[in-house]
């Protein structure tokens, strides 16, 4: 399905999110191991093993079993000390054991009998290989965040330094328009989890909570190979755990600033000159705040609280230009082939585009006893952008305002608010000597998203901005019809008149404008989204032919999306043309006309419209699922992970009726891990998994039922002439002539439509294929890892992913009506089967920070091809999960298979940091990162009559080659001064894009704006001669012979890398 892009540009703010069901996300880790007698090499039973850590309330004690094995589960991530004690043995302690989030590590120990005389030094460092799982990905902790430049300023959530930006560090991950793409999937397909609670937007799937990395203890970016505890996502999982407090008071106060004046020079994009242009510049961006954690009761009740406001300010300069004409009337063209324009002096207007966010977090952790603990956490991220006289930054993508082609005073008057609050209760308990473990989570995620008039007028009101309609003039007009020029420049837009007074007189405009808007706010909305989640998981340890860790879980999720929408003044007008053969009050009419382009309302019988000033709908979804898994370890060498997950999703439309039910989501996960030396230092693994998508609510909101809209065409009065008819550029006329039925144009009686004056107004649910299957994808991962030296691992992995069924909407009549199904099967078998095949080979080296340095390097070779991009359409940034326009137009289905937009053959990421200690008090750290990416494919796009530009693949995907390599080097310098035993003052400088590389990021892929058909299996040599027209769009002159047929800007850069930016930070930690 396709909804006109005007809606997007008028600032639709709907946090989109793939409903991500979090089934009791593992928020803890486990330590296992074997204790043997160093002399006799026999296992030692009944050894008391004690684990302690500043992050752990109290201590955890277990005892080794008859085989000398011990297991300590449900541990929060942190740095641990393990103590091993038994009578007749020398006590042994191992410290600095780094336990990451959601990991199982093995620490084997040899105890020396007391009777042994000599002292034998056992030197060994604790291992870091996670022997319990087949997951691929990276873990990011505070040490990494402090020493490497992360959270690039700008972009989505840039000033807030959101945890989501860390996902880009994983091998095979890259930024996309709405977040991070992992393993070839799109960002709405990922699962975002904070403290066990999903933070996906229930309507669109993207991350709705830009939680600051200041509040985060550990972030796991899981790219694949995960067990059935994690489900309902077909991308990766970004799993974060917030900080928890400890037995001592610790906290920090910090501030960061990225000033716009220190930006490197931006390379200017050469583009076609236009009469109205806009330029964005960063003024500044920054955040500040404080965190504090500590004990309320030592080892019993801890608290953690944080507060971090952040702000972004860009300046937008709007300039009016006049086209430079040669004396013969032709347009002056520069060396690059673009139209030359001259700025009109004094016409600059400046506006700020601001975003303000306040983040807060509070958490209490209570240890009931050694076996049971609970925690309660609350966090929120209210964000505001826009306001009276201010422009908005898109909260979903971080996109900045484009050129303001509207009358001054008729823009910069809406405020967009987005807020995600979550409240989570967690319980973890152990029974029967830690043989049975129970984890339960209960959570409420509440999100509001609105775009409302900044004067406070309510949706549906006839007063104020909410009662003021918007109008877009489509045909070319002279700029001065709407705007005054600055003093002294009044003649700048005067046209050039050739052959004046003769029959060949020609008037050539210097300031033509098209697509110019006047009036009030267009689309406005107010939405409330909720997620209630309850899940529980039980783990049972069984010794039978090895060790079994049996897990079973239940997971339920209730979602709702309640949205009220309205257009300013109840209608959005657009210049149009009368119907063919139209009449007005009985007489033929062929004059100027405008259409009620968007108006909410319905008709219960022909020509009897009922207007609705607002339209409200509430859609809900319930997902219930469960899983069973067994992690079976044999002889400490082989672990088999066998599991299955089951989900069913029921979706209810705006009328409260069941719209769609997706059952039988059987999701097997089978994997094996081999530790050939049984010492936790090596592993080989293989894993097969099937993942299912949880369908976001936006699809229901838009199609079940669809929006009730009706249409009319009216006589248009040219603005400023005072002639009869509707003139929306004048508010009084909006309220009088534009509502007068005598100005409504009628369709000719020869039309077979029963309506003469008002069309549309009826809506039914979209038909669904009764055999529809849920959307899912398969994955196979194979790899190995080896611990080279202490804390340093090397590894390699191969990942393969493909799609099974895909849910999409399709049309058999080129966009007049749609149905929902699985393309390529069932009802829709003649449509092409959606494919997305991903192959990835990664080699990596990973050293966590210890002994003063850290290093991480990875290289990924990958291939992403098919005809289905995912849950948003990268070519046009259309974010409508499962109802994209890709399968809508039968006439444009050809040429869609090939390398997909996020296909990058090579990706290299290298990170390194070293700490220098000068004196006891003074130390410094230096971090460097390098990222190199090969380019993405270039397509040849054409337009479609109804859907607009970039919808037709004139040549097969990728026929235009690739964009060039991009390199970026970032650096981080920090100086730390220890003021007292526990407090440190640090000053940091992050320089992003140190050498100001201005590589080409995106290029213009619009080959033509004409409505041309795809050339099946065509090649560039087929252009322009073999280009044909879409049916109904035929033109006498062959393609390529008329000026403007091909886009002169094709393959030219449309954006460069962000320039060098510096972030200064100051922090006091105690």
């Amino acid at each position: 399905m396709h909804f006109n892009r005007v809606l997007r540009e008028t600032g639709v703010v709907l946090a989109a999110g793939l409903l991500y069901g979090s089934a009791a996300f593992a928020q803890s880790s486990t330590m296992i191991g074997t204790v043997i007698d160093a002399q006799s090499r026999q296992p030692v039973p009944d050894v008391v093993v004690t684990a302690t850590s500043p992050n752990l309330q109290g201590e955890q004690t277990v005892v080794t079993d008859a085989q000398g094995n011990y297991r300590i589960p449900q541990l929060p991530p942190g740095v641990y000390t393990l103590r091993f004690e038994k009578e007749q043995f020398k006590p042994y302690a191992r410290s600095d054991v780094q336990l990451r989030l959601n990991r199982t590590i093995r620490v084997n120990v040899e105890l020396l009998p007391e009777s042994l005389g000599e002292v034998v030094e056992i030197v060994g460092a604790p291992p870091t290989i996670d022997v319990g799982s087949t997951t691929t990905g990276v873990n990011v902790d505070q040490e990494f965040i402090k020493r490497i430049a992360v959270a690039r300023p700008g972009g989505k959530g840039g000033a807030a330094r959101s945890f989501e930006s860390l996902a880009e560090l994983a091998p095979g991950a890259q930024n996309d328009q709405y977040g991070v793409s992992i393993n070839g999937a799109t960002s709405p397909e990922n699962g975002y989890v904070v403290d066990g609670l999903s933070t996906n937007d229930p309507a669109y799937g993207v991350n709705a909570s830009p939680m600051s990395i200041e509040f985060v203890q550990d972030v796991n970016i899981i790219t694949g190979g995960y067990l059935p505890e994690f489900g309902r996502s077909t991308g990766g999982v970004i799993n974060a755990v917030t900080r928890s407090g400890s037995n001592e008071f610790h906290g920090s106060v910090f501030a960061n600033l990225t000033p716009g004046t220190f930006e490197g020079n931006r390379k200017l994009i050469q583009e076609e000159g236009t009469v109205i242009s806009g330029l964005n510049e960063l003024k500044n961006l920054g955040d500040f705040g404080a965190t504090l954690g500590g004990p309320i009761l030592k080892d019993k009740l801890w608290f953690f609280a944080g507060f971090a406001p952040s702000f972004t300010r860009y300046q937008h300069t709007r300039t009016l230009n006049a086209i430079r004409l040669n004396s013969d009337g032709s347009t002056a063209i520069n060396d690059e082939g673009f139209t030359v324009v001259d700025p009109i002096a004094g016409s600059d207007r400046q506006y700020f585009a601001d975003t303000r966010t306040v983040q807060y977090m509070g958490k209490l952790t209570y240890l009931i006893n050694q076996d049971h603990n609970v925690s309660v956490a609350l966090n929120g991220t209210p964000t505001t952008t826009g306001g009276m006289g201010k422009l908005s930054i898109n909260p979903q993508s971080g996109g900045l305002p484009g050129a303001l082609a509207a009358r001054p005073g008729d823009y910069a008057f809406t405020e967009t608010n987005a807020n995600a609050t979550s409240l989570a209760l967690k319980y973890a308990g152990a029974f029967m000597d830690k043989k049975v473990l129970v984890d339960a989570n209960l959570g409420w995620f509440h999100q509001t998203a609105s775009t409302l008039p900044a004067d406070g007028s309510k949706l549906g009101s006839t007063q104020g901005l909410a009662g003021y309609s918007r109008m877009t003039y489509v045909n070319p007009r002279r700029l001065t019809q709407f705007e005054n020029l600055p003093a002294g420049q009044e003649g700048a837009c005067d046209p050039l008149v050739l052959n004046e007074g003769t029959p060949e007189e020609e008037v050539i405009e210097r300031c033509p404008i098209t697509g110019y808007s006047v009036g009030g706010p267009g689309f406005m909305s107010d939405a409330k989204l909720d997620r209630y989640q309850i899940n529980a998981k039980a783990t049972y340890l069984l010794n039978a032919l090895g060790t079994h860790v049996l897990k079973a879980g239940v997971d339920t999720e209730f979602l709702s999306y309640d949205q009220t929408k309205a257009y300013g003044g109840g209608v959005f007008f657009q210049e149009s043309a009368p119907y063919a053969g139209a009449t007005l009050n009985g007489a033929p009419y062929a004059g100027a006309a405008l259409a009620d382009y968007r108006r909410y309302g319905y008709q219960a019988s022909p020509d009897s419209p009922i207007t609705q000033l607002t339209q409200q709908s509430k859609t809900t979804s319930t997902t219930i699922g469960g899983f069973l898994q067994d992690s079976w370890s044999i002889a400490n060498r082989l672990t088999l992970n066998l599991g299955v997950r089951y989900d069913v999703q029921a979706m209810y439309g705006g009328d409260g009726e069941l719209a769609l039910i997706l059952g039988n989501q059987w999701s097997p996960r089978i994997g094996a891990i081999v530790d050939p030396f049984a010492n936790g230092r090596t592993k080989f693994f293989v894993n097969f998994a099937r993942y299912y998508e949880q369908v976001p609510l936006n699809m229901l909101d838009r199609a079940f039922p669809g929006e009730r809209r009706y249409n009319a065409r009216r006589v248009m009065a040219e603005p400023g002439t005072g002639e009869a008819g509707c003139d929306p550029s004048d508010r009084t006329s909006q309220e009088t002539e534009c509502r007068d039925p005598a100005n409504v144009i009628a369709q000719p009686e020869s039309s077979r439509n029963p309506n003469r004056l008002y069309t549309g107004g009826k809506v039914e649910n979209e038909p669904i294929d009764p055999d529809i299957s849920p959307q899912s994808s398969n994955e196979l991962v194979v790899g190995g890892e080896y611990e080279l030296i202490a804390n340093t691992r090397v590894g390699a992995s191969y990942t393969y992913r493909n799609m099974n069924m895909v849910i999409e909407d399709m049309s058999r009549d080129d966009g007049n009506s749609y149905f929902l199904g699985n393309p390529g099967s069932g009802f829709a078998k003649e449509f092409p089967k959606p494919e997305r095949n991903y192959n990835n080979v990664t080699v990596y080296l990973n050293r966590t920070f210890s002994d003063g340095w850290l290093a991480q390097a990875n290289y990924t070779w990958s291939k992403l091809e098919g005809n289905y991009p995912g849950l948003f359409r990268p070519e046009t940034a259309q974010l409508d999960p499962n109802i994209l326009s890709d399968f809508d137009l039968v006439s444009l289905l050809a040429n869609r298979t090939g390398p997909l937009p996020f296909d990058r053959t090579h990706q290299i990421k290298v990170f390194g940091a070293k700490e220098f200690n000068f004196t006891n008090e003074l130390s410094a750290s230096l971090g460097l990162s390098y990222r190199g990416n090969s380019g993405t494919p270039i397509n040849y796009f054409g337009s479609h009559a109804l859907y607009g530009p970039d919808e037709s693949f004139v040549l097969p995907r990728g026929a235009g080659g690739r964009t060039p390599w991009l390199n970026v080097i970032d650096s981080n310098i920090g100086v730390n001064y220890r003021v007292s035993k526990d407090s440190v003052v640090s000053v940091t400088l992050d320089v992003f894009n140190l050498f100001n590389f201005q590589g080409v990021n995106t290029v213009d892929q619009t080959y033509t704006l004409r409505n041309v058909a795809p050339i099946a299996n065509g090649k560039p040599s087929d252009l322009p001669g073999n280009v044909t027209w879409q049916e109904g769009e035929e033109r006498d002159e062959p393609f390529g012979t008329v000026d403007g047929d091909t886009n002169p800007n094709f393959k030219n850069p449309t954006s460069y890398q962000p320039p060098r930016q510096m972030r200064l930070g100051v922090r006091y930690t105690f």
Partner: protein
Amino acid sequence: MTKNILNAAMVLVGAAGLLTGCNFDQPEAPCFVQDSTSWAAIYDSFDTPTDGTGACEVRAPPAELLGVYKFVDPDDLSKAEITIRPNGLASRASRDPGPTTDQTATGAFDTEPDDKGFCTGRNFTEAKVVAAAAGTNPATNITYQFSDVQVYAAPSLPGTQLTGQLKYTRDGCTSNYTIRALWPAIPCFPTGDATGPAELCGEGSTLNPDFAAECGPVLGTSGGRQFSYCIPAKAIPSLK
């Protein structure tokens, strides 16, 4: 401990059984109608025209385009209307000084399909045109009386085929027909001018591939070729 394992396993198996035993059929489709000005209808004649006293000559056109629309009242979902505006009346409507609604037939429409998957429109108003003479066309008086219009509403092809009865009267001469219609109306070229199966209601024509459709009787000439529209090949539902 064994007892505990057995208990746990039983609970889980029971829960799984409960879930898999659930029926996951999609909800029943309502009485859906594809609103369009271009339904292609064929009229099957089953009696000889009569003018009340004896036989007469005038018949309905063999096939034509219909505008079929459904209206619902969101405040009272039990009320639905179906309207039909045939080309034979609409093309002459400008010659009739009366209201434009005269040329549209309106009937009450079911809200749920019956056992066979049909939704029926009943009690249609009479649609007529009283056309004055214009140019070479003489004055004429045409009436369409639709009855028992059944739209096929199965989810596999919702609201895209219909059948019904038509009593056609022109200048006093009445005849009765069975209507078979489908949507969308795709032009085709029946007299040997077609350039491939796409122009003969076959592959590539964008008709639902499950439809059994054929090219109807010649209705006119376009671009030098005699054309018609794809119409259902069998009784409704007309499927392969």
